[in-house]
């Protein structure tokens, strides 16, 4: 500082003296001019950095050492953050269709009598949740408890059964040697199916088809049951038998149809996972067991079962998760009103029902309850799998 002062104070030609006030503005002007000049130079250098000469310069500079101009520094800093440009499309789409809906759902579920399309609501509170759980929405829509019971019942019956059957089939498949490939292909074939379309096929198995010459004609299942002397049951139609438990309806015949369909549609994926897991078990274990004189059941119970335990728990968890969100299978089987006035409704079906009715508040509340249930399952799953995989 002192040196600078000395330099300034001893020029060859002393500058013109102004009074303090004027000098201040002159200095200010010079400073502003300098600031703009600096920016202008920086911008100039920045664009200059793209030109051909600049590249040559840069190479020379790089050879000399890391002395970067301001523009070059800025350009490099900009470049370092250019990853944001790459993620921008995804980020914008997610902001609109993922992040915003999450916030909107949490806020909207506390708005009483909220109608999403107009944005009108009466006040804040837990009323949506209470009414959803009570089934007191006053709109003639689906009943939440009914939907919850349907979803839980269908999921917790069909997923274990289908996993068990898949396990049996894959054990059998694993134990044969001839035509294994052919069986494999047949079992994997329904792997890619359209849940709705195949649901319609299953419905034709079970339904009362129509009348010919004033006699009812029925689907295959009723015909087979007829061989055992059973009267035809309307499995999927409007006269399907229902038990009543208070307000709750238990359409048992429809449950059976839905469970059979879900077992069938869940099998290929489960067989695929279990079978490939069994195939990848090291053959040495089996050889060792055989040397020790273990029976087939011992081998199955003490070698195969523990080795595929992670896959089984994975299948149970993904099955339950998927079951909680089931919708299109039920629509395929029982039509778009999900049985008689949503007596086969699922939780997702409930949401869509209320979206369709325009009752956004109830739809939000229902979706948040579904979210909480799925989070609870995920939580227990994490606890369980951590324990199980350390055998």
């Amino acid at each position: 500082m002192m040196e600078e002062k000395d330099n300034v104070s001893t020029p060859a030609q002393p500058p013109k003296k102004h009074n303090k006030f004027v000098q201040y503005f002159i200095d200010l002007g010079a400073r502003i001019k300098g600031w703009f000049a600096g920016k202008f130079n920086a911008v100039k250098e920045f664009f200059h950095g793209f030109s051909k000469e600049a590249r040559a310069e840069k190479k020379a500079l790089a050879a000399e050492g890391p002395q970067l101009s301001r523009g070059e520094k800025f350009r490099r800093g900009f470049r370092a953050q250019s990853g944001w440009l790459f993620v921008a499309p995804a980020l914008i789409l997610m902001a609109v269709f993922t992040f915003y809906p999450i916030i909107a759902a949490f806020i909207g579920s506390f708005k009483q009598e909220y109608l999403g399309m107009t944005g009108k609501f009466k006040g804040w509170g837990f009323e949506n949740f209470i009414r959803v759980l009570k089934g007191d929405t006053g709109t003639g829509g689906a009943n939440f408890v009914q939907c919850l019971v349907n979803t839980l019942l269908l999921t917790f019956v069909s997923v274990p059964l289908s996993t068990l059957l898949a396990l049996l089939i894959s054990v059998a498949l694993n134990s044969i040697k001839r035509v294994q490939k052919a069986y494999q292909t047949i079992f994997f074939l329904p792997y890619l199916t359209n849940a709705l379309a195949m649901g319609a096929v299953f419905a034709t198995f079970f339904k009362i088809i129509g009348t010919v010459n004033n006699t009812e004609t029925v689907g295959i299942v009723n015909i087979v049951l007829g061989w055992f002397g059973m009267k035809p049951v309307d499995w999927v139609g409007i006269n399907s038998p229902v038990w009543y438990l208070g307000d709750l309806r238990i359409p048992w015949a429809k449950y059976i149809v839905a469970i059979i369909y879900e077992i069938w549609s869940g099998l290929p994926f489960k067989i695929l996972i279990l079978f490939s897991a069994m195939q990848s078990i090291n053959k040495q274990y089996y050889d060792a067991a055989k040397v020790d004189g273990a029976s087939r059941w011992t081998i199955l119970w003490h070698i195969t079962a523990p080795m595929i335990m992670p896959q089984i728990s994975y299948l149970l968890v993904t099955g339950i998760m998927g079951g909680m969100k089931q919708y299109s299978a039920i629509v395929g089987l029982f039509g778009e009103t999900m049985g008689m006035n949503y007596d086969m409704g699922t939780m997702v079906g409930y949401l869509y029902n209320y979206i369709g009715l325009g009752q956004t508040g109830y739809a939000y509340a229902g979706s948040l309850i579904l979210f909480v249930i799925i989070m609870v399952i995920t939580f227990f799953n994490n606890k369980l799998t951590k324990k199980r995989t350390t055998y």
Partner: protein
Amino acid sequence: MFGLLLITSTGVGWLTALCVLLIIAEIGGIAFLGYKIAHFGKEVSAAVIGKWDLSAGDEGFDAEKAKKIERTKRIVKDVFVYLFLTVCAVLAFLPFYWMLMSSVKTEMEFRESVPTFFPHTFQWKNYWMIFHQVTGTRGGASFGQILINTLVVGFLSTFLGLVVIVVTAYALARMDFKGKNLLFAVMLATMMIPGELFTVTNYITVAKAGMTNSYAVLILPFLVSVYYIYLLRNNFMQIPNSLYQAAKVDGLSDMGYLIKVMIPLTAPTLISITLLKFIGTWNSYIWPRLVNAQSWQLITNWVTGGFVDRLQPTSPWGENWTIYGGNYGNSETLDTLKMAAVCMVSLPLLILFIFCRKYIMRGVSKSGTKG
């Protein structure tokens, strides 16, 4: 808490408890049965073998006879295993067979009180009927229109989705920028949330934006799928860094490296993603139904519409409808037509699966979800 109280008060609690008990009993019972059978088998075989061992001392043990017994046991076991597998395979395949056969039956034959397992007469006209859909119950959406919708939406959403996914995954895997890890963590966290939660708001968003009844509304909300970004990012990360440096030395830009090196190397994953995205469009049902009118909907929506026809004396089937006891002019659902439509939706999937099994299974077995 009040929810729990409510649930118990309506008797659902009992039902749930009953179900849980049932399931436990079911699994326990099967396991116990299996255990018993195993033990029984063991005891029997021990007894048999023991007898043979005993008799060996007395009469001279016949090794060949023991072998024979072993072989018979194996054959019996094989018979049971093959029988079980065959029954299961037949049951697994039956819906497909029934779908195919029903789709070419005449409506009269389909409604017979004793169903035929092989059609007497093949009526290919059913397919002609669903393509031309004379009855007009479908709100003016012909099969051709629906197919064009599905293909356009399928290709566009697959292609654009792939671009977004690849670019994002590349940035997350290879580029350094502030907040990258936070961004990735947030993206992954959204995977935990069921997609149905978004649908409610998205519906309002697109409806307010006036986007309903367009292709864009079917494409935009599903372009980004975090799971595929995650999958591809992991694939990109596996490519060694030395390759990147080598490419730089050779004068490739970042974009050039992405296109010329990374995409070819991760082609299998990209093919899986492409197929699954397209299948996702093919199978999507709820969203198109919610936001679009029938003429803008996709192929799965087309299947669910009842294939209802007004029975006419001059029906295109040329059948005698009076046999059904119904009056002319009544609307009836024609299951054969519905089965033909189901075939049109299911068969492409089956064929795709047969030819691209490897790629589809790779994608699905990793994610546990289809489409």
